[in-house]
């Protein structure tokens, strides 16, 4: 009794609750890796590419919460990524379409693609995007509100699982057709291109790319902190609970749909930030990031990283994209085989992704070496943070779900007897 009370009291401490020792370590390693190691070793060209990959990590982190925790698989995350990206692109496009640089158009001062489509006046919904504060709000608000509408309609009516996945897929396909079809307002299939400056600051220079990389990095870290907070709050535990026993949660007095709506909107907001950062770093936005194929690819980033690990998701996004670039450079023919095999392999052999592999193989190894080291020298010579220097980047699974994915796994993998 007294023992219980003591252990409970310690867990009341709030920072420790949000960041148990292990997670803090993983976060630090990730921050060092992205914030110091990569910028030191890569040239700006490669670093910019890493920055682009990291924008997908936002989506992957959101998917960990939605899919890994909430059990909601969305095949339409590209929609939110795209909406965020388009909001950013609209602002940048307006800035680069000042009357001076567009004076050869029949209507100077509007984006070039509108001029080509005989639009003579800026459409009303473009007007507010002259303002940066509005744009920043819109980047998060527009996709989140859209996600909210979808989520309310679906979750209040208990649409879930496969149905939700297919409906989100249909929405992705509708939005793509709309964007392409309404080219006068959206730039059509070419997207919104040739974005140059942000409040007069040229975003295409190498120095700007550095700055943007770090802005991106900071945003990602902020999203990770939010995700970690959610994960470790009671809401996180409720999501885990819901995935297995939705009815029980409901009959414990919770409005299950509101939690699903929340986590789906959060995932959408993360994706939207990723989309906006994508636009800034790549310099354009096009409907090819909205459709079904990119949306499914984003799911695989999350699955490769480990669907229950927010840190794993970041590594997953990096690894898959890096592999894609490398493979498609050296063996374009083999790339689709590799990607296909990756999908099947992750699902079949490593349902917990990189994070699972780390937990089951790398961590025990490190711990064993650590033990040996300790035995060899009575005094621990160095703090544990320097141990995995040579080991592959550490990944994590959340503490309270250290077993692989509980519902999707068969009984043979999960230690929980049924």
């Amino acid at each position: 009794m007294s023992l219980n009370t003591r252990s409970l009291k310690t867990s009341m401490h709030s920072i420790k609750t949000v960041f148990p020792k292990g997670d803090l370590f993983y976060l630090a390693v990730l921050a060092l890796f992205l914030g110091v190691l990569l910028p030191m070793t890569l040239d700006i060209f490669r670093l910019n590419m890493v920055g682009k990959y990291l924008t997908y990590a936002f989506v992957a982190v959101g998917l960990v919460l939605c899919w890994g925790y909430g059990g909601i698989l969305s095949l339409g995350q590209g929609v939110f990524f795209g909406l965020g990206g388009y909001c950013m692109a609209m602002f940048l496009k307006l800035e680069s379409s000042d009357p001076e640089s567009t004076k050869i158009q029949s209507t100077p001062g509007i984006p070039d693609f509108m001029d080509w489509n005989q639009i003579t006046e800026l459409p009303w919904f473009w007007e507010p995007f002259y303002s940066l504060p509005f744009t920043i709000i819109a980047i998060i608000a527009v996709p989140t509100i859209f996600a909210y509408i979808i989520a309310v309609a679906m979750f209040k009516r208990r649409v879930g699982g496969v149905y939700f996945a297919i409906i989100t897929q249909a929405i992705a396909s509708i939005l793509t057709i709309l964007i392409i079809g309404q080219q006068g307002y959206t730039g059509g299939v070419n997207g919104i291109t040739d974005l140059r400056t942000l409040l007069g600051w040229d975003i295409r220079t190498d120095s700007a790319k550095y700055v943007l990389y770090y802005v991106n990095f900071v945003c990602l870290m902020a999203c990770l902190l939010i995700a970690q907070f959610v994960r470790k709050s009671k809401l996180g535990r409720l999501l885990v609970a819901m995935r297995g026993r939705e009815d029980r949660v409901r009959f414990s007095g919770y409005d299950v749909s509101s939690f699903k709506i929340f986590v789906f909107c959060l995932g959408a907001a993360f994706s939207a930030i990723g989309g906006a950062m994508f636009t800034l770093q790549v310099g354009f936005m096009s409907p090819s990031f909205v459709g079904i194929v990119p949306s499914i690819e984003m799911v695989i980033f999350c699955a490769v990283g480990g669907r229950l690990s927010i840190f794993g998701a970041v590594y997953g996004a990096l690894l898959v994209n890096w592999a894609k670039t490398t493979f498609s450079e050296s063996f374009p023919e083999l790339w689709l085989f590799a990607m296909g095999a990756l999908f099947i392999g992750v699902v079949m052999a490593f349902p917990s992704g990189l994070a699972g592999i780390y937990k089951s193989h790398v961590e025990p190894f490190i711990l064993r070496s650590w033990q040996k080291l300790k035995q060899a020298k009575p005094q621990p010579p160095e703090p544990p943070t320097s141990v995995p220097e040579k080991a592959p980047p550490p990944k994590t699974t959340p503490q309270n779900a250290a077993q692989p994915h509980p519902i999707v796994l068969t009984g043979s993998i999960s230690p929980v007897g049924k």
Partner: protein
Amino acid sequence: MFSDYTSAELLSIFAMQGFAGLILFSVFVLMALGLAIIFGQMGVINMAHGEFMILGAYVTYLISNLFATYLPSLFGIYFFIAMIISFVAAGALGALVEWSFIRFLYQRPLDTLLATWGLSLILQQVYRSVFGAREVGVTLPDWLMGSIPLTETIELPINGMFVMGLTLTIAVAVYLLMYKSRWGCQVRAVVQNRPMAAAVGINTARIDRITFALGCGIAGVAGSAFTMIGSTGPTAGQLYIVDTFLVVVFGGAASLLGTIASAFTISQAQSTMEFFLSGSMAKVLTLLTVVIILMIRPQGLFAMKVRK
């Protein structure tokens, strides 16, 4: 828009448009039947469904070349043989796929989605490596490509009628197989209560494999038939996947009749809207309507209300 036309012209156009809707309906049913079996009955989200269809199309292409080279006199009937071989080829590939990984994933529907998406990428690259990146043109027997003029304006396309006939045949066959045969009874038993079915001596693993193979085989036949109306290329399968899933889901996944009814509803809606609106907007509106109806009635149009 109709003021310029005589009533006779209008009548014939509406007749034609109704017929176009029927062809679209047949196409949808053909696309969706295989998936309705795999997804509706087995719960496997087969994202490679389109690629199984394209396998059928490529088989048809190969057979047509074989006949053109070795048996030109029998070219007129090669299509029937091609359909049978397409069925067997897609079915065999389906059985192989089921054996190699789908069978491990029956409890994890969302994971079947990812794995079969991976499979679809691999198949696409296989097609590209074997047949080249370009689309291949499948030469059809002349009798299939003509039309029968009824009146001056009403002409019935033979390939459309062929697709309709084929759809009817396959739908009836599937219905008989699933609801009237002992095997179909076993399939439904396995779907509804796997442990119980196993306990009464049904070889569930075998049933699963054959069911999956059957679904893929039907996709193969569909692909073979679609060489008459669509393109055959490595990535052509992806064009069908969203529509196909929507048809199945809209009908209420577990019900074959629902699939057919839903194909009818969607095809009529789409062809009517296509006639009054431009093509892109018709497509958007159709998809949007389906999505909204699904939000209101998530169990699909024709699902049974069951006591849980």
